């Protein structure tokens, strides 16, 4: 049976060149980067080279990159680190309702610590309106954190416009670029952000390697105190092979990004065009301002999980988009925020493409998916329309 991986927003396979670059740091160059003898110095040099490549991917300076272990860590670091560093200036933070849980839950944690948080609404495409940002700003606002691109609905936010508004008021801007960095061009100077989160496994690097870009001169309270690693801002012996892998993946991505975009965009458009031919299927997210390899839908009358299972039985691996729906059987806060009713939100499916996705794969998908929808609708208790139904929603909405 064919195996077609359409869940690239969840993670990606390691690029073979990345694995090759990492291997010596598991074997020969195992030294602690703080050690002053040769194996340690080799490891130190590799980290600093990786820092340069990682910075170049987002047009930053090497010294503005702090390596972390995950996008979630970087997001926690950004929110808590900036909140604590600037709490004497103000205690108000602005995020959107469509943030990743590592941002939303950090914001909720900070609320418990006495900070005030505004959760901005989005429109039906998932876009934050910059004028809403402007209206939400108070004299107490110290940080605005808006996700760059949604992994769930693919929408790309107007970060540069939001930053422009924030900068006029001297407010720090963070963006979670986990889903965007490596999939679209990301330039911290063009976006004019002070902090940016990104993760290696989103661009064919290893899991366990991520970074927080912190603009030079921006004060931040470390999440992890200890040694002098990462300039004293993130203690702990470095995961050298993973960092090397991130650097290599960043270098390859910078080289191949346009080729990847050109490859996945028509395939994604084929999925969207074909899937929307089926009745009662809604494209979620913005039709144009979306990630190039990202197609997401809500299919009426059937559950996302049922579709995923039947797709997996046909060798197609995809996602329902949110841990809320896949693990907690709740409605996704992102889908609720874009106005999808609770009963429809259960029918969410997300297909994300990568450089290994072929036209043949998409042809197979385009044949298979409509058949699965038909089959599930035949056995759906709602096939003839929705009855009164209500499911518990996640609590992201404020």
């Amino acid at each position, binding site marked *: 049976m064919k195996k077609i991986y359409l869940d690239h927003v969840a993670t990606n396979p390691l690029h073979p060149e990345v694995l090759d670059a990492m291997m010596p740091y598991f074997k020969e160059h195992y030294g602690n980067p703080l050690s002053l003898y040769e194996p340690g110095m080799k490891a130190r040099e590799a980290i600093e080279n990786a820092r340069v490549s990682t910075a170049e991917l987002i047009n930053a300076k090497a010294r503005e990159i702090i390596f972390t272990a995950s996008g979630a860590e970087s997001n926690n670091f950004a929110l808590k680190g900036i909140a604590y*560093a600037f709490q004497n200036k103000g205690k108000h933070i602005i995020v959107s309702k469509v943030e990743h849980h590592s941002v939303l839950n950090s914001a909720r944690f900070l609320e418990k610590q006495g900070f005030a948080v505004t959760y901005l609404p989005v429109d039906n495409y998932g876009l934050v309106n910059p004028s809403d940002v402007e209206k939400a700003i108070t004299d107490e606002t110290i940080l605005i954190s808006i996700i760059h691109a949604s992994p769930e609905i693919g929408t790309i936010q107007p970060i540069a416009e939001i930053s422009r508004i924030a900068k006029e008021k001297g407010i720090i801007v963070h963006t979670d670029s986990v889903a965007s960095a490596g999939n679209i061009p990301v330039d911290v100077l063009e976006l004019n952000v002070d902090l940016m989160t990104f993760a290696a496994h989103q661009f064919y690097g290893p899991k366990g390697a991520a970074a927080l870009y912190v603009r030079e001169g921006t*004060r931040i309270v470390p999440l992890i105190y200890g040694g002098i690693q990462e*300039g*004293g801002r993130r203690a702990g012996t470095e995961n050298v092979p993973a960092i090397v892998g991130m650097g290599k993946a960043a270098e390859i991505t910078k080289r191949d990004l346009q080729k990847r975009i050109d490859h996945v965009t028509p395939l994604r458009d084929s999925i969207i065009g074909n899937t929307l031919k089926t009745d009662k299927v809604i494209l979620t997210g913005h039709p144009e301002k979306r990630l190039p390899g990202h197609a997401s839908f809500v299919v009426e009358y059937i559950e996302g999980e049922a579709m995923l299972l039947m797709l997996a039985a046909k060798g197609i691996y995809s996602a329902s988009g949110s841990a809320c729906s896949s693990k907690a059987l709740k409605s996704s806060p992102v889908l609720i925020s874009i106005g999808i009713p609770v009963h429809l939100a259960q029918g969410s499916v997300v297909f994300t493409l990568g450089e290994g996705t072929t036209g043949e794969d998409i042809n197979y998908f385009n044949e298979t998916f409509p058949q699965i929808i038909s089959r599930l609708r035949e056995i759906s208790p709602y096939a003839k329309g929705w009855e009164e139904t209500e499911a518990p929603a996640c609590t992201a909405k404020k």
Partner: protein
Amino acid sequence: MAFAKARQLNNNRLKFLNEPMEADAETDIIYMMCPMHLLTIEDKVKEIKAGQILSILTDYDGALEDIPEWCAKTGNEFLGIYEDADHYKFYIKKIKESQ
């Protein structure tokens, strides 16, 4: 910050300034802990010329003992500390070019 702590230290190397000084270079290591203050000074002193002044912004109390001590050991001149609202500003004059 409990600046009183600085005053209570029995450290005859400490000098307090009533006004901030002009500096040729500044490094902000607020929220960084030991030993980042010393490592940063080492790096930054290399970047300035003999006779120039480096200011170090830190909120790390340990710096009150460590920075004057570091200056004494390395032969640089510790010019003093200015207490800002929530951090210290240390001033160091580089003495020898070879550092």
